[in-house]
């Protein structure tokens, strides 16, 4: 930029003119200082813009067209992120009014509900976006699994995703206690009893006096023997600081790895399948990209520009950004609509003397609670841990190549998934129906040691059935992927069946009812 008044004048008025000029051009200079590459008007400048922007740079500058098909991801990751953003913002707003102390906590929620301007709306959004996040995080995981996205080089990101799943559930669970109502109190009491459940085993072995992981876990969780002020402050701190901080950090790594692992998974023959780009597409980028190649030289792996040439890629800006923004707004619109339609629940003030009957955990834990009804240790700890370990091992046990990037890709394919779903559903329904109709060991032999039920219960029987089914599928198709497809589908279906039973069909004393309308007293 040239300075018309740059020449020194003897009378010294040059500095004043420069000052005036500088002042006038400050807005423009400020813009340039912030957006270094100027207005993003061309593909090239847009790419530089994306690359140079802190908030955008975890996108690839260019994305493959495959990625932009709705069916590639259904936008589930973005919806998850969007709902997290919403919970984050509304959560911070709620923190202005929420007071983490028993009784006072309940009153503060009542005040948020009734008198804080838009408080009820904000709390509803918080609740619905948190629920949406849990739903989409599950669906996102299912998408990643069914498109075999966990395979090399994305094994680590799959594990990061699992950590994020656990953190999401942890955030939901810790948030559950904060209103300090009956729902919260008794759900957390169940949680605390699950933490205590290793005593089922240590008691049976009579070693609790020497080795008591259950008691320790519970103490760690509650900070006391009962759900009280110590527990509340713990859950609050976890909910508003520790877990969100971890989640944010891991989310950053997760997103960064998406880019570093070569973007969203796609079939190796994606280019062929897509055919030539649509004529309305932004012109394909033919100039030699400056920075991407420089970077590609440094970055090991399969950045799009290195592997297949740029022919089937489009600039992330605006193609990907429109898609992301659209899905982001979709999530927001969904949460807003739900927040207007339905209030977040708030029951009576927590009362340790009046147990909720039935006391139900949040819906996403009801599948686990259904198993906990038989054995807290098996249902609440052993099976979830087995499932998590199993999920974490998938990328290392299935190293096949076939079907990567395709829905239900791999030997067996959609047909195997259907068969597995049928098996997963029917076997879980059958075993539940059996236990509901005929009871379990305890009902037949009241004196039976709890240890036996800990080992033999519908949860373990179901897990074994799924394991054998998966082995059958593995042998039948001679493929580890087939085994994984079978096992994952079975567990997913079992989870859904158990959750539905726990949510809808269980009443007081965890007994079976066809509908809540049949509960006694109603």
């Amino acid at each position: 930029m040239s300075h018309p008044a740059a020449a020194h004048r003897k009378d010294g008025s040059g500095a004043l003119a420069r000052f005036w000029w500088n002042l006038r051009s400050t807005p423009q200079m400020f813009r340039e200082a912030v957006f270094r590459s100027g207005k993003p008007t061309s593909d090239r400048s847009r790419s530089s813009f994306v690359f140079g922007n802190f908030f955008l740079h975890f996108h690839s500058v260019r994305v493959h067209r495959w990625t932009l098909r709705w069916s590639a991801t259904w936008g589930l990751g973005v919806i998850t992120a969007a709902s997290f953003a919403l919970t984050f913002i509304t959560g911070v707003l709620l923190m202005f009014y929420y007071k983490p102390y028993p009784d006072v906590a309940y009153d503060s929620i009542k005040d948020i509900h009734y008198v804080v301007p838009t408080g009820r709306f904000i709390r509803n959004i918080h609740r619905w976006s948190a629920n949406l996040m849990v739903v989409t995080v599950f669906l996102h995981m299912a998408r990643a699994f069914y498109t075999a996205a966990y395979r090399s080089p994305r094994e680590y990101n799959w594990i990061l995703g699992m950590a994020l799943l656990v953190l999401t559930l942890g955030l939901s669970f810790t948030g559950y206690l904060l209103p300090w109502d009956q729902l919260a109190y008794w759900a957390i009491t169940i949680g605390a009893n699950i933490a205590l459940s290793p005593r089922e085993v240590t008691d049976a072995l009579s070693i609790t006096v020497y080795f008591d992981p259950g008691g320790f876990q519970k103490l760690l969780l509650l900070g006391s023997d009962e759900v009280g002020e110590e527990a509340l402050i713990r859950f609050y701190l976890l909910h508003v600081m520790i877990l969100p901080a971890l989640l944010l950090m891991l989310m950053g790594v997760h997103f960064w790895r998406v880019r570093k692992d070569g973007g969203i998974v796609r079939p190796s023959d994606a280019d062929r399948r897509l055919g030539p780009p649509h004529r309305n597409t932004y012109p394909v980028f033919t100039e030699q990209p400056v920075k991407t190649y420089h970077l590609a030289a440094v970055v090991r792996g399969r950045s799009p520009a290195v592997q297949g040439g740029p022919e089937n890629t489009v600039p992330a800006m605006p193609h990907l950004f429109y898609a992301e923004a659209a899905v982001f707004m979709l999530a927001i619109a969904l949460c807003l609509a739900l927040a207007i339609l339905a209030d977040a629940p708030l029951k009576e003030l927590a009362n340790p003397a009046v147990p909720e009957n039935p006391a139900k955990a949040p819906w996403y834990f009801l599948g686990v609670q259904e198993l906990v009804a038989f054995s807290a240790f098996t249902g609440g700890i052993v099976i979830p841990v087995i499932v998590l370990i199993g999920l974490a091992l998938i990328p290392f046990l299935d190293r096949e190549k076939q079907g990567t990037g395709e829905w239900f890709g791999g030997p067996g394919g959609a047909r195997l998934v259907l068969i597995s779903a049928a098996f997963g559903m029917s076997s879980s329904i059958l075993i539940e129906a059996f236990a509901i109709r005929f009871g379990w060991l305890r009902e037949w032999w009241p004196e039976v040691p709890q240890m036996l039920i800990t080992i033999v219960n519908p949860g373990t029987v179901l897990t074994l059935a799924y394991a054998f089914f998966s082995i059958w599928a593995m042998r039948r198709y001679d493929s580890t992927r087939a085994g994984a497809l079978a096992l994952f589908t079975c567990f997913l279906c079992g989870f859904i069946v158990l959750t539905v039973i726990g949510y809808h069909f269980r009443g007081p004393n965890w007994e079976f009812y066809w509908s809540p309308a049949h509960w006694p007293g109603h």
Partner: protein
Amino acid sequence: MTRNKHLLLWTSLGSIALLGAAITDEHFRQEWRRMQLDYRQQLPEESAVQFPIQLRQIVVPPLQATDRCVTCHLGMIAGGEEIVGDPVFGAHPDVVHDPAEYGCTVCHGGQGRATRKADAHGRVPHWPEPMLLPEMSYAGCGACHTHLTVPNLSQLNRGQALFERYDCLRCHSLEGRGATLRPGQEEGVDAPDLSRAGIRGFEPAWYEGHLEQHRNAVTGPWKTSFGEIPAAERTAIEVFLSSRVGAPGLVESKSLFHSLGCRGCHLVGGVGGDDGPDLTQAGHKDPGQLNFSHVPGERSVPNWYAEHFRAPGKLVPGSQMPALELSDSEIALLNFYLLSLRRAPVPQAFWPRDRVRAEHLGEREFSRDGETLFTTFCSACHGDQGQGRRYAGMEPFPAIANPDFLTLASDEFLTETVRRGRPGRRMPAWGEKDGGLRPDEIDEVVKYLRGLSGVAPPAPEEESRWAAGNATLGGRLYASACASCHGEDGRGQEGPALNNPVFLEIATDRYLVETVRKGRSGTTMPAFGSPALTHRMLSQEEIEAIVTYIRNWETQP
């Protein structure tokens, strides 16, 4: 990209529309805003200008009250202007307690923090304390006035009847009735309102004053509406007046409760039997915790209680409570009293006199005469005249006013039985550490019981244990003559248990021997000393042998 652009456009527009809807809801569609606009329209113009549309609340930290009721009930806030005759915007009826100092929910229940009518009135799911129905508002007094003194029911009823009969309402007003005339006629002043005579007190020499006026008057109300009242009736009227504390219905209901013997099984504030549930907080019952499957009508606590009074076992399986066959009006009154049992955790600075006197000075909330004590604690089982009672599905309760019994039972026997109860049977111990009756109160009860039958106590005995029969013979006789009713080892069957340690300790040998000999009329216990077709007659020696045998259980039960 077009599809994504469209999606972005429509989701964004949708979000904006939803936010708009939320804003509209927040600012224009809130119930209380519309109420306040309505109120403002009814205000005179100069006040309407200064009336801001905003939330209003009464906060009383020591009572834990944050009551936003006045957001709609605008005539009840301090300095609020009432709309006369409006059910919502009217002023609070005249009460001693200013809502601005006490809040609303302390008395009325409901949800003070709520700002929507349904939530605030509390008849919604998940709110344990719905607002008291208007006709039961005075039950709310029980939150603080936990020990409101009540007279004996019959005295109260008599006093009320006399108050009406002597036409006191001609000049005086009471609970919104009466005062049609002025004693000094048109230009005179109103006669005092007696609705709170029990708190404000009244002139002890009121009768003499009235009588003098009556004698001096030539015409008018003093002449025509007043006449002489006999002393006994004056006392009854005074009892009635002392019970007028500005809570119509509450005293009557509490008095009724104390006439039905309910406290024989139920504790209230630590005094009473413990067979049934403690009723100290009965007014705080959470409708959400009750089973309404057998209760017709609305799912409300009064409805539940009413149905429970009619058929306790239907609502609470295994209930020990007998169906008392109460009339609907009695049920309504009992309901009223139960709802008033809502002791709130208020700081002592807020305690009313009745509670301070009761908890610090040990005063009773009921009268301490024998009759009241008997009807309060004994009558549900033993009958109001001590005639005993039978309830379907329960062992019969003994008729303790039975002359056969009272001629043998010394006052000491009665006192000890009341004080220590009968372990193992339904008769609880009433001593100070158990049921909470004081020694002088037990004496009153015994005196009253004695008076019911008119039978003098037996002459005192020099020796209480003198029977020295043959225990082996006694055992044989017991097995053949007594065990069929009193059970093997005296554990009781149809007849009462005899191996009861307290009974054996306080029953003298004469009591036992004479009971066996003369039997107990009105019960299945026959007179074994007289010849009969149904059993073998026992000689004095044989009876003493049985008593000696029974005594063995004292040492080896």
